[in-house]
């Protein structure tokens, strides 16, 4: 049924249809509306979950870890500092091979403290062993959460999934979304049947000490699984299409006018909507421009990105995060895709934009296209205010 909803409400309505047994969260802007909505659903008896209000994000992640270990579908959501405070639990959940879904309402990282959107929080946890999906719209938010549980609980996956949505832009924005019917969701996402669980009838030890004779294989196993996930996500997407009718193709990337393009921007998340609009305008003027949207940042779809960009002359990579002291995170992946390849873009330029909630307008996108020339750009920050950089400290 089509409804006009706020982003956070959209998440809550979707999570409700996934029927998690344990929900735990700690409030942080801009995640709060999501868990407030879920708490109200539990209070109204619409949702039968155990809702655990904790004293920190570290415990929120630990509670859902415990819920999943006990064999129950579990859910949490956070942002920014909250995700960083969860950090060691985030790694731990993946290492324990527990299925879980976490919504990250993407927000910048302190200091300075700033509650607005960029993607530094989830990007900083890219090496944790989680699957990371980045959504452009509220419809994708609904659909990616449904796919996230399917994927996470797949017996050949058994890894947690982080669904990333830009804070405020998506969490607090309103759109018309097609909310799925419960029977459709039940068909796509059957009740969770754990492979392993903590059960006195069949005692099991979880979280053992692995010495140098054993540790490395556990990491290798996750790496191999994530390679396989590149093949599993398209299958889940195909099944999704058969139940709900929406087609995300391989659901790893989305190509927008890339086939004949000479200039393409690569980006993730809500900014892709703005880029599409600019591409439409420029296409009307005959410019051969396009967008490559990355949906799955982890695992990273190198082969699909290669196929999409191999004939494109100039590629601009737009990062909403920085790996301070190095090339930007998404730019690194795009460059790695073409390292040692004969067919490759002549130029892969790196741009950083939108940090701490600075608007990425259609003008910002146009500027990126303008700066995408034969001269490769190592790393340029878009919409910087030079006047703030020259201010001197007067002590």
């Amino acid at each position, binding site marked *: 049924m089509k409804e006009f909803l706020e982003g956070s409400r959209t998440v809550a309505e979707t999570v409700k249809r996934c029927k998690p047994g344990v929900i735990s969260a700690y409030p942080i802007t801009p995640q709060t509306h999501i868990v407030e909505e879920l708490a109200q659903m539990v209070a109204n008896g619409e949702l039968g979950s155990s809702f655990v209000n904790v004293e920190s994000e570290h415990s929120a992640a*630990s*509670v859902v870890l415990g*819920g*999943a270990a006990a064999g129950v579908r579990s859910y949490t959501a956070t942002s920014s500092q909250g995700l960083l405070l969860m950090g060691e639990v985030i790694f731990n959940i993946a290492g324990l091979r527990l299925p879980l879904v976490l919504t990250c309402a993407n927000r910048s990282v302190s200091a300075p403290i700033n509650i607005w959107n960029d993607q530094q929080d989830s990007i900083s946890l890219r090496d944790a062993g989680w699957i990371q999906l980045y959504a452009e719209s509220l419809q994708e938010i609904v659909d990616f959460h449904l796919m996230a549980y399917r994927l996470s609980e797949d017996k050949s996956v058994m890894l947690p999934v982080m669904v990333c949505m830009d804070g405020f832009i998506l969490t607090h924005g309103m759109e018309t979304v097609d909310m799925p019917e419960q029977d459709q969701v039940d068909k796509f996402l059957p009740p969770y049947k754990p492979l392993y669980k903590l059960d006195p009838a069949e005692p099991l*030890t979880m979280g*053992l000490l692995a010495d140098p004779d054993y540790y490395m294989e556990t990491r290798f196993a996750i790496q191999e699984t994530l390679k396989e996930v590149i093949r599993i996500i398209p299958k889940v997407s195909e099944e999704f299409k058969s139940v709900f009718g929406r087609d995300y193709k391989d659901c790893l990337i989305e190509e927008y006018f890339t086939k004949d393009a000479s200039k393409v921007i690569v980006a993730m998340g809500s900014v892709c909507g703005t880029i599409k609009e600019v591409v439409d305008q420029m296409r009307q003027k005959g410019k051969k421009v396009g967008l490559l949207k990355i949906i799955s940042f982890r695992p990273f779809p190198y082969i699909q990105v290669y196929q999409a960009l191999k004939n494109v002359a100039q590629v601009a990579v737009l990062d909403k995060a920085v790996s301070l002291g190095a090339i930007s995170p998404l730019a690194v992946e795009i460059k790695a895709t073409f390292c040692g390849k004969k067919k490759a873009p002549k130029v892969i330029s790196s741009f950083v934009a939108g940090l701490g909630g600075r608007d990425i307008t259609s003008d910002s996108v146009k500027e990126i296209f303008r700066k995408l020339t034969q001269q490769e750009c190592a790393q340029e920050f878009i919409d910087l205010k030079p006047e703030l950089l020259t201010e001197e400290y007067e002590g």
Partner: protein
Amino acid sequence: MKDRVLFRPGHTACAGCGQSLAARLVLEAAGPNTIVTNNTGCLEVFSTKYPESAWGVPWIHSLFENAAAVASGIESALVYLGKKEGINVIAQAGDGGTADIGLQALSGMWERGHDILYCCYDNEAYMNTGIQRSGLTPFNSATTTSPAGTQSFGNIRPKKPMPEIALAHGIPYVATASAGFGQDLQRKVKKAFSIKGPKYLQIHVPCPLGWRHEPNLTLQVAKCAVETGLYPLIEFEGGVLVSRRQITPKPVEEYLKMQGRFKHLLNAPEEIKKIQEIADNNIKKYGLKVENTTTTEKS
């Protein structure tokens, strides 16, 4: 299931380890229908070195400080499944994992009212990493990070009052126990599981390596801590003191001289006096001293 060994031998604990003894007693009292969460620490390391496990019950280790939160998630999952009745949930940790790094998660577990028994195995320092001081290291004890020296008698602070912190949360059951008094320990575990809600049990467990005593003296050292008044065995239900082990107090010097960690005090009578004052305060506060010489225990 009746014949199942709940905590199997063959693990790699040191000879004379008070913690392994106490953990076995706790689990045997709790029985097979128990799920355990365990913070990082000696107990976790010596009992679950892959591919072996000493545990005959479902057991999970996640991190150093989150056993109380993981247990909260497990308990919430059991409630959701309608399977909580008949299943005991234990969260357990050492003193550092309880009183220092794990205190926030533990406070959250208490405040939320989960039906969980939290067991702190108190060996009074970070033994797993090599005898560094914790918030439960006693006054004037020498550890590797609170060593005695020409300008120091060791740890400068008394033990963090964890049982009182637990009581301040208004939880229904708080008790201390000792590896030296096994029957009392097991009675308290059973008592705890007869009460719904969050429970705290702090168990004094000698560590021959860290305390520097012979491994065969573990039980004597544990008993002596109680008999001097330095480790009162107390039990609270609903915030009310319902039992305490009464003693004919021995001078603290008897306890101190058994252990290398207090060796530097033996020529410092003023410092021993300060420790005696701690014991005397405990004795007074909880009424530990026997009035009648024929009674040794009141419970």
